[in-house]
């Protein structure tokens, strides 16, 4: 039986349990008042019936593929035909599995046909076992809970305890995700650093992981050009676009614009943040980059690259405008109105008030916002993948091509790579650096903003 059908069956059993518990309760109680409403008795029994087997199924689905593979490897057929080289071995097994499930019809390796029956047979044996175990669990749970349904049974308290456990469980997912990210990045990075010296990685200036290296040669894992490219595009060029435009937009919309203009323009500018990054990437590569290349050629810059840091940074800056402007908006709005009045009452003009009082007073909030924007920009992937190029140059020429951390992660992990090579693992080391830097930026930014908010509360 397929997992989905089993799942539906279990839910059906749960409904049956729900109804039968209520019937039992009304038979036992008659006119008597019960401690908990029949509803809760129903839920109590239904949960006991359906939840344990479903949890079991989730576990089962995750471990069976491995179990089935082991079982197949142990069969005599497998012993005869399986190659010893691990990569070929897993490829053959995967093909046999796909064949057995009917996902493919003709395998590349004819041997897979020999293995497929073993797969199908083992799989169905395990499936049968899973079905039987799940049903046993369901009936056991049902029997346990059903016998406890009595008028004085505190079903509501029990159900609520289960609900609380579910709530707690749900909120632990966030911690699990964080732990998952940190653990996987750390684990793969450690493996990478056992092959490549961390100092060479962090301070080396030559990045060419795709090249074939002879033993004893510099493997080309020096990430400094990547770090520079990331900073150059995300923290310099993009911010040169986003800070003036974002800040001045916020100033205009909060201090000068009529309320109707503000009501319309604010959401329109926020659309800029909602456009998918792949669209920006396409726009940067197809529309902006050629213009910049031609402009560079026109002002006499020889061999301007069509994948320039400027094109990627410019478009990324446009994407970041709403972040800067909404943070600046909030920060300026948080400056007490009495400051503005105080300055205006001295005979200052609006712009003098804004430049000399409001912006200095809002500065911590604005700086926090800019830090968040930088963290966002350096983690941005698609724009740089599509527009920044792959050449790991250490250059401050905005018309040249530079590459970034995220671009290289994508580059290292796409295509056919075996998972354990230094190249793939390098992507995780880059990911770790990116994660740590964005995390620090966020922590600092949030702390700055929080302290600033407190100053005016």
């Amino acid at each position, binding site marked *: 039986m397929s997992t989905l059908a089993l799942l539906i069956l279990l839910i059906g059993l749960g409904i049956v349990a729900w109804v039968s518990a209520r019937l039992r309760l009304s038979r036992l109680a008659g006119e008597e008042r019960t401690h908990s409403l029949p509803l809760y008795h129903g839920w109590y029994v239904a949960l006991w019936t359906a939840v344990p087997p479903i949890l079991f199924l989730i576990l089962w689905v995750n471990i069976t593929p491995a179990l089935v593979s082991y079982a197949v490897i142990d069969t005599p057929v497998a012993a005869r035909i399986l190659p010893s080289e691990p990569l070929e071995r897993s490829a053959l097994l995967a093909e046999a599995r796909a064949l057995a499930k009917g996902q493919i019809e003709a395998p590349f390796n004819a041997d897979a046909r020999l293995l497929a029956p073993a797969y199908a047979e083992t799989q169905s044996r395990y499936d049968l076992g899973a079905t039987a175990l799940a049903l046993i669990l369901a009936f056991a749970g049902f029997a346990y809970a059903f016998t406890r349904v009595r008028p004085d049974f505190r079903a509501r308290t029990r159900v609520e305890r289960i609900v609380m456990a579910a709530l707690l469980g749900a909120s632990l997912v966030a911690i699990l995700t964080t732990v998952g990210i940190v653990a996987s990045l750390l684990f793969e990075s450690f493996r990478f650093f056992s092959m490549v010296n961390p100092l060479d990685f962090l301070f080396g200036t030559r990045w060419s992981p795709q090249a074939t290296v002879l033993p004893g040669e510099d493997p080309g894992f020096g990430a400094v050009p990547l770090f520079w490219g990331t900073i150059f595009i995300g923290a310099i060029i993009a911010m040169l676009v986003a800070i*003036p435009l974002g800040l001045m937009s916020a100033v205009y919309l909060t201090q000068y614009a009529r309320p109707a203009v503000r009501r319309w323009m604010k959401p329109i*500018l926020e659309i800029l943040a909602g*456009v998918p990054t*792949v*669209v920006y990437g396409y726009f940067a590569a197809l529309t902006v980059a050629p213009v910049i290349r031609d402009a560079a050629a026109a002002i006499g810059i020889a061999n301007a690259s069509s994948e320039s840091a400027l094109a990627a940074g410019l478009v990324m800056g*446009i994407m970041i405008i709403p972040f800067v402007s909404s943070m600046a908006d909030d920060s300026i709005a948080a400056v007490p109105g009495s400051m503005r009045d105080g300055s205006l009452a001295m005979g200052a003009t609006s712009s003098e008030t804004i430049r000399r009082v409001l912006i200095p007073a809002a500065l911590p909030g604005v700086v926090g916002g800019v830090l968040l924007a930088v963290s966002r920009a350096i983690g941005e992937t698609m724009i740089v993948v599509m527009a920044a190029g792959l050449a790991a140059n250490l250059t401050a020429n905005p018309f040249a091509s530079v590459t970034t951390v995220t671009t290289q992660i*994508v580059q290292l992990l796409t295509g056919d790579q075996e998972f354990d090579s230094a190249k793939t693992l390098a992507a995780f080391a880059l990911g770790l650096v990116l*994660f740590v830097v964005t995390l620090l930026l966020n922590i600092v930014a949030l702390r700055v903003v929080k302290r600033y908010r407190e100053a005016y509360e």
Partner: protein
Amino acid sequence: MTGMVAQMPDRDRKVAERVPTDWKTGAMQTRIRRRYAAERRFRFMGLAAVVLSAAFLAFLLVTMLAQGLRGFTETRLALPIDFAAAGLEVTPAQLEQRGADAALASAGLERVVDNAAVAAFGPDGMDLISDTAWIRVGERLKADPGLLGGQAVIAVPASAGVDLAAKSGDTPLDARVAELRAQNRLTTGFAWGFLTGADSTDPTRVGIWGALKGSILTMVVTLLLAFPIGVLSAVYLEEYAPRNRWTDLIEVSINNLAAVPSIIFGLLGLAVFLATFQMPRSAALVGGLTLALMTMPVIVIAGRNAVKAVPPSIRDAALGIGASRVQVVFHHVIPLALPGILTGTIIGMARALGETAPLLMIGMRAFIAGPPGGFTSPATALPVQVFLWSDEVSRGFVEKTSAAIIVLLVFLLAMNGLAIYLRNKFEQRW
């Protein structure tokens, strides 16, 4: 009095007595004028920033529309075919049964169509019509088997070269296309195939449905996981969680996850779901799982704000008539907070729908020529499709990429519109 001032040191006297400012002097008037000029400049700079930002947006959208709308159309050639003379070995009865396509293929319809093209357009005829033109002819035959015994002029899709020459020009085929157009043999129609097909190597044959279905499957998984987990976490943190180190840890985790670059979630998906749990590569299931982890913090944060906005008086009222704390939350707080939670969910889902980088990491960038069959079969997604087509060299892909972007933006616009509608309709002010 005067004497006393005179005896004071020079500096102190100046401090005590200032000459009243004369605002009417020329210097002062010039200064004021300069200040007002600065004010106007500053104000203009602000306006310019707003206009420039909006202009970027307009330029982006107009560029995409201008290029993309052509992607929804196809160029067709009127191809006269004499079926009676061609001698197709297919009976009208066969055309009405199942297996008609196979029968047409084995009867050599493709050859018949190619010959007809050569006959109609000259020796280069085969290069003018699409490789799949015969399929269109076959469909026409199936719809009207009576044609088999006679002649017909059928509009078939033109080849990529003709399509490009007809739409944008500047190709070697321009002159030929102008000639065909003068003969009234060229028509333009809506490319239904673009909405129903999947990826292909020929830009005239690509379709968006494969990627769209992949996106829909991915979003279903994301929603089913992220929504319940997000709402339950939000409720727990806002309503029940004791203030202790664990709760702080959860809060810090959620706030940081919301700011983690999306590509890191891709790395997580690759290392955990693919490498450790051996889940299938390129599958919508894994994509959905990955995006769910990314979307969940957004929903939790929106959910917490919505729950927080429900006034305590409602909780007190319910507790006061003897409801348990679970009943208070599930009967009163969640229904009242639902519009806010839904708005946050839709915004999070819209962000997930436009996300590309994490899906690249888990292999959803493969070339997949048909719509995905299910959650575990290889799939791609709309934004990934945009990325893949943008990498194609053939010029015909430019308009198809932009057309795919239009489809993506329409979906995002619809979702955000729905979110705004929900917010306005159900927004409660306490």
